[in-house]
């Protein structure tokens, strides 16, 4: 590597460009503006390729939804709208902080820049935490891509020895441990730069578990435990009313991820308190309709393909979030190093654009997958 740098320096010396070349300006550019324009055009082109990359999956989605609208409606019930919504909110907020970070870099507010980047990163981590809850839950239920699909609606929660959530969390635990260790070591050594980097990153790493916690609370009903217990009792009561003729709605609602079905059931239970037994018949009529769809839908050939598309789209999106996290960490370190100034803020801008795109794709994914009903 040294030879190249030497060569580059050599180039400057030999041609007298170094006198007007600031350190951030690459030797083959003439002006900072030219460098910025190149980067900007480059990142926009890259975003175009990203959109085309996702467009393949959107096409697959469109084709299958056109062919099998019932499958998509039936299966999207298994996606927890609340988790999706909170993730949408988190990402939107992160877009705001990212835009703010770009502003900070343009106005030489370094502290603000670091804070904003750290908030963006934290949001990304919360997003992943919530996603981890969603994924692990579906894996436990066997709601997997077509080839691995094992979901059985009579037994939606099979006993498994695999703790998917634990395995997903494992790398993040190591990450957290590593960052904390880094923080401690740099605190002990008194290396200010390292402390400045490690501090926000520790917060960021913790945020993944905040996301996990948030996801757990949300997916297990509304908010508190006592309420949930009460809810379960009500569900039991409703079942008892039906005298063993269990409605599918109840089956679905027993699945914790189905907040929608559950809330409908609560509503019905409350209604039945006031209106007596009429609700049961109504429920049966509705359940009959759902049963026919259910029997068609919840098979490998049908629901499996929906979940294939779900995992492909959200999975590739999550990979993009991971890459974004990588870029943001790099920016954070550079921001701590105070690399950016009003003449040179390109990297923050470019990563910002990338981040907005990733958010935007989620904004499309959320209604397309979660809000079909």
């Amino acid at each position, binding site marked *: *590597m040294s*030879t*190249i740098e*030497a*060569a*580059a320096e*050599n*180039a400057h010396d*030999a*041609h007298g460009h170094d006198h007007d070349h600031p350190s951030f300006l*690459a*030797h*083959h*550019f*003439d002006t900072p*503006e*030219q460098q910025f*324009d*190149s980067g900007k*055009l*480059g990142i926009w*082109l*890259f975003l*175009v*390729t*990203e959109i*085309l*990359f*996702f*467009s*393949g*999956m959107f*096409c*697959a989605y469109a*084709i*299958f939804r056109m*062919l*099998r609208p019932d499958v998509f409606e039936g299966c999207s019930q298994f996606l927890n709208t609340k988790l999706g919504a909170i993730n949408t909110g988190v990402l939107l907020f992160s877009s705001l902080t990212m835009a703010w970070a770009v502003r900070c870099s343009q106005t030489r507010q370094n502290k603000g820049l670091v804070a904003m980047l750290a908030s963006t990163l934290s949001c990304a981590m919360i997003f992943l935490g919530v996603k981890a809850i969603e994924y692990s839950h579906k894996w436990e239920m066997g709601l*997997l*891509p*077509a*080839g*691995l699909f094992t979901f059985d609606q009579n037994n939606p929660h099979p006993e498994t020895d695999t703790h998917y959530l634990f395995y997903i969390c494992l790398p993040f635990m190591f990450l957290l441990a590593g960052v904390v260790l880094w923080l401690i070591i740099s605190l002990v050594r008194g290396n200010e730069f390292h402390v400045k980097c490690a501090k926000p990153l520790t917060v960021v790493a913790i945020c993944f578990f905040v996301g996990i916690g948030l996801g757990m609370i949300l997916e297990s009903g509304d908010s508190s435990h006592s309420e949930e217990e009460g809810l379960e009792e009500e569900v039991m009561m409703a079942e008892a009313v039906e005298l063993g003729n269990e409605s599918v709605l109840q089956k679905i609602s027993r699945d914790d991820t189905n907040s929608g079905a559950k809330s409908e059931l609560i509503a019905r239970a409350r209604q039945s308190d006031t209106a007596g037994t009429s609700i049961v018949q109504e429920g049966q009529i509705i359940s009959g309709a759902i049963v026919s769809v259910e029997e068609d839908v919840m098979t*490998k*050939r*049908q629901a*499996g*393909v929906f979940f*294939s*598309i779900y*995992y*492909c789209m959200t999975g*590739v999106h999550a990979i993009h979030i991971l890459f974004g996290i990588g870029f943001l960490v790099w920016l954070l370190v550079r921001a701590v190093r105070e690399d950016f100034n009003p003449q040179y803020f390109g990297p923050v801008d470019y990563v910002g654009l990338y981040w907005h795109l990733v958010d935007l794709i989620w904004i499309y994914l959320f209604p397309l997958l979660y809000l079909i009903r």
Partner: protein
Amino acid sequence: MSAGSIPSGNQIKDPGYPTSSENYLTNSKGALSWLLTLDHKRIGVMYLIGVMTAFFGAGLLALLIRLHLFRPEGAVFSGPEANNWYNQVFTLHGAIMVFLFIIPSIPAALGNFLVPVMLGAKDVAFPRLNLSSFYLWVAGALFFIAALLASRLDTGWTFYTPYSTTTDTSVILATSGAFILGFSSIFTGLNFIVTINTMRPPGMTWFRMPLFLWATYATSIIQVLATPVLGITLLLLIAEKVMHIGIFDPEFNGDPVTFQHFFWFYSHPAVYIMILPAFGVISDLISVHSHKRIFGYRFIAYSSIAIALLGFLVWGHHMFTSGMGPLTTIIFSALTFTVSVPSAIKVFNWLATMYKGSISLTTPMCFAISFIFLFTIGGLTGLHLGTLATDMHLHDTYFVVAHFHYVMVGGTLVAFLGALFHWWPKMFGKMYNETGGRISALVIFLGFNLTFLPQFVLGSRGMPRRYATYDPEFQTLHQVSTYGTLLLGVGLLISLVVLLRSLYKGERAPANPWGGATLEWQCTSPPPFYNFDRPPLVGDPYDFSDIFWDSENERYVTIEPDRKIAPVEQPEPVHAEGNH
């Protein structure tokens, strides 16, 4: 003025020869200075070595294919696994040629070397990205080698489902390789687009760009827009293979034809990734060696862009027999015919450029003439395939094989060789043996025609492609084709020997051995590592009026009246205007 005379009283402009500390080949030493270089020229040379190696390997596989087909029952492979061997050989031949050779040949290897120099820039816009593209290419190649070593590949380079999802061979390794190569291609394209858009020096307006740059620009657009779709398709294919996601698998309600749509949405434009740079090369070669202004510059430039855009609309013509609706099929046929127009325009323009020129039959010119001949055949036989009724008979027969080899080999490979001979003195600073070069061009031309002309007849007689064994009535033509391959191989070997020999025994090349007017001829051969001392003075790339033959020193020189000397200080805002 008489031939060879230099008008007196003017200043001769010639950069002379580079010193070894300036020469990009020698200015820093050691393997690392090459492997970690950010210099676009060195990256270009590394690409060149890479793609030539891939070409050599895939060429040997082609030879095996042809030798096997010497007899109806198969001459090379025997035993119960004979057909499997043949299938693996033709698959690897196709996959390596397409993904590792043709797509990166002109755009990545020559493009990397030439784009910044022709443009008058110091480097591409993102040198680190450029190096990473090269290493992505290497990684992709390693994946293909891994596939070869694991359980090989027998799906055909098109990876059609459901065969590719059910076979035992290393489809995952190979598709991962192609996926990575796709990103290499995207990054190269992105780099060139940004370079051409933002790095043009003062005076280099869009219509002063050499046509090679126009072609590269059009190619880059396709690379950036089409390749991501291939990426996601291959990713879905891998997911299909690993988890049975069912999108392409009829067993899970999927549709294999969807895969074909996705695949050809990339792979048809990819055909233009392969041929467009060749158009650019030939435009430059014809003009320089005819010492005459290119005829219809704007038509050629616009037709490149037109081809790039129309190329996105015709993918369905690979699937005329796969069961699309009749209306869709007819629309795709109509669109297919529209693409042939811009290609025809170029052929006529090249001929018009040669008319009343001052032609030097140098090796690159021989290749260029051979290109026009072969590409015209390739293009015209495309009409038989674009016409629906005849395609019902010819689809997936040897007629198709012959057609695309005329375009890919007779077109791209011949143009690549022509370009290599044309810019070889610039790249390595050595002149090769002109007679040897011309002989190789002739042998390649003859060998190529002998190989692939019979295949048109084979196809129209009904010989299906990808057959390891065939009916005896096809034997004679297959044998002619095999002899042709041997001749073609000899021609290619002669080329290789001529070029390699020049590195050791060749004479030192002057800055401008052919009399070109584009910017790369204004710097020394080989160029200095910084390309240009200061932003070069950009003139018309096809104006040969002030270039004269200096018979004393066997070189072309640019003659300029004194008043035309460039001002040392360039006005500041000029290059910003260049963006318009």
